[in-house]
């Protein structure tokens, strides 16, 4: 198990290299001179040349890239073009804000989604099932920022119970969480429903019925845990979407989180900040996916053997069967 975790963490390295390479590539093809961007339009040619030298922009791209990677290894993600502050110092406090919002959103989405999914699986093919489906699908069809606008209009402008923007007031977290969480309900609902229905059709459910077990216990003791396996698997992917949604929502609500920081940096073409943000998001995603995978092992004992035995999921060695 320990070996497996180490292996997964080592996998971070190529991903980080890849992500930084992609953004670096984007940076080099972007028109415009960062030095001019920092110094403004009034700067003289000499000042710009000096600045370029200082930033190392005159070196070949590869050298710049290697230097950057070297810096990252020491915790130096470069300095923001705009403020001149170290990127890491700017991002870290924002990470907490974004973290709270994203976790809250995932919790809302997963809780409501799984609940609705169970309900619709148990009431399959009834009007309740259709209603749940339509409701969750409706939320899936609304872009995060539109949910945000509606919430602002209702709770902030009309009812005055929640602040329009900012998080000075802890209540300010509520709307961003809902904005990201509600659209993700459908995903959980659908996976829970179909996986629940599949599990309820399995032979071992019939075995449990033949034992004389009550439907209630069959649903919650036998089926639910098995049905949660694919649902848990989807948390990882939906987290990526939530972080993406967070970028838009934080901008709409003016929340000082990583998402807004990256969006601002993109509009300002502030590449050190974009790079830093992207790398940190990548790290967070990989680590969370690792945690999700570890959680699986707790739900599904079959995985424990394969993980301990070979690390990777067992490849289908076709032939042994007749």
């Amino acid at each position, binding site marked *: 198990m320990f070996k497996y975790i180490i292996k997964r963490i080592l996998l971070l390295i190529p991903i980080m290299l890849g992500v930084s390479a992609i953004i670096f590539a984007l940076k080099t093809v972007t028109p415009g001179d960062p030095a001019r961007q920092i110094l403004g339009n009034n700067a003289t040619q000499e000042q710009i040349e000096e600045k370029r030298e200082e930033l190392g922009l005159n070196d070949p791209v590869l050298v710049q890239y290697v230097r950057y990677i070297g810096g990252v290894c020491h915790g130096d993600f470069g300095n923001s073009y705009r403020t001149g502050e170290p990127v890491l110092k700017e991002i870290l406090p924002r990470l907490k804000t974004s973290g709270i919002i994203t976790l809250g959103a995932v919790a809302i989405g997963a809780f409501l989604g799984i609940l609705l999914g169970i309900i619709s699986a148990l009431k399959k093919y009834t009007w309740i099932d259709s209603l749940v489906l339509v409701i969750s699908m409706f939320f899936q069809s609304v872009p995060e920022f539109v949910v945000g606008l509606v919430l602002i209009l209702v709770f902030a402008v009309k009812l005055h119970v929640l602040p329009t923007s900012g998080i000075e007031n802890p209540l300010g977290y509520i709307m961003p969480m809902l904005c990201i969480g509600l659209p993700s309900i459908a995903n959980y609902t659908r996976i829970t429903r179909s996986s629940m229905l599949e599990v309820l059709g399995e032979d071992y459910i019939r075995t449990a019925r033949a034992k004389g077990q009550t439907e209630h216990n069959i649903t919650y003791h036998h089926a639910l845990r098995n049905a949660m396996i694919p649902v848990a698997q989807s948390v990882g992917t939906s987290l990526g979407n939530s972080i993406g949604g967070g970028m838009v929502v934080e901008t709409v609500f003016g929340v000082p989180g990583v998402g807004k920081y990256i969006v601002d940096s993109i509009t300002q073409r502030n590449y050190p900040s974009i790079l830093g943000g992207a790398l940190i998001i990548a790290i967070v995603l990989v680590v969370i996916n690792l945690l999700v995978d570890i959680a699986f092992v707790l739900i599904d004992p079959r995985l424990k053997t*394969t993980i301990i*035995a*070979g*690390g*990777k999921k*067992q*490849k289908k*060695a*076709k*032939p*042994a*069967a*007749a």
Partner: protein
Amino acid sequence: MSENLLEVKNLKKYFSTPHGMLHAVDNVTFNIEKGKTIGIVGESGCGKSTLGKTLMRLHEPTSGEVLYNGVDIASMPLKKFKKEYRSHIQMIFQDPYASLDPRMDVLQLIEEPIKVNDKKLSKKEVEDKAKEMMELVGLAKRLETAYPHELDGGRRQRIGIARALSLNPSFIVCDEPVSALDVSIQAQILNLLMDLQEQRGLTYMFITHDMSVVKHISDDIAVMYLGQMIEKCPADEIFRDTIHPYSQALLSAIPIPDVHAKHERMVLKGELTSPINPKPCCRFAKRCPYATDRCRQEEPKLREMRPNHLVACHYAEKFVK
């Protein structure tokens, strides 16, 4: 004695798994005479299907030779094999429900191999040939436009047979062709296969786990255990004079549909393990009631105990009646 159509020499097929090398087919040697049927029996996981697919080059052999009319088809480049020998060696698959593309109708399914292998034929010629094949395997004309999911298992298996036969092969690997079918349908397909063999001089390799079926259709029978061939003999001999303890156990385990049949049952302990990184020993030693230290340390070789009767057991002499 007639000539050998196929000579298999030291054929090996290994698969690498996370747990080690899986010896699915290990050092198998046998011959098949022209126009005869060899039955391959064994329990699931003994490598009998892999053997068939390796002969077909659906799996690439790890090492060994397969001489088809004297030409080694196992080591030639896959491209050359596909071009020149694919149509000579064909296969009938186990599951007639899964082995037909659900999006094609019966005629399309049977036309496919003809079209793929002879691009020069006109549309009409292909269709005529396919219709001829349908008639040959006993599929009614009205089924031409039916889809596989509308047909029962027996008819689907007839499509599978027509597909294989449409290329005029001389050798057919039948991979459990009747095990997914009910007894009454099974008899229809077995009769069809035997009729076709007579008409067209086909040579079969018949893979199955059903002893009564294999005895009915085969001339020779080979018993496999964990990737190795442990006994090979003429079909009628295996039920009279089995030599290898495993073959004896296998035979005695078959329930006989006769209330008065009283036979000694030899119930084996334990179950088949998978042949991953096997040690040099008799692979049956773990379950064999007669196993000695020699069996656990030394791998037995196939020896000819009687004319045409080969056994891989150190103590074969002891079991000869």
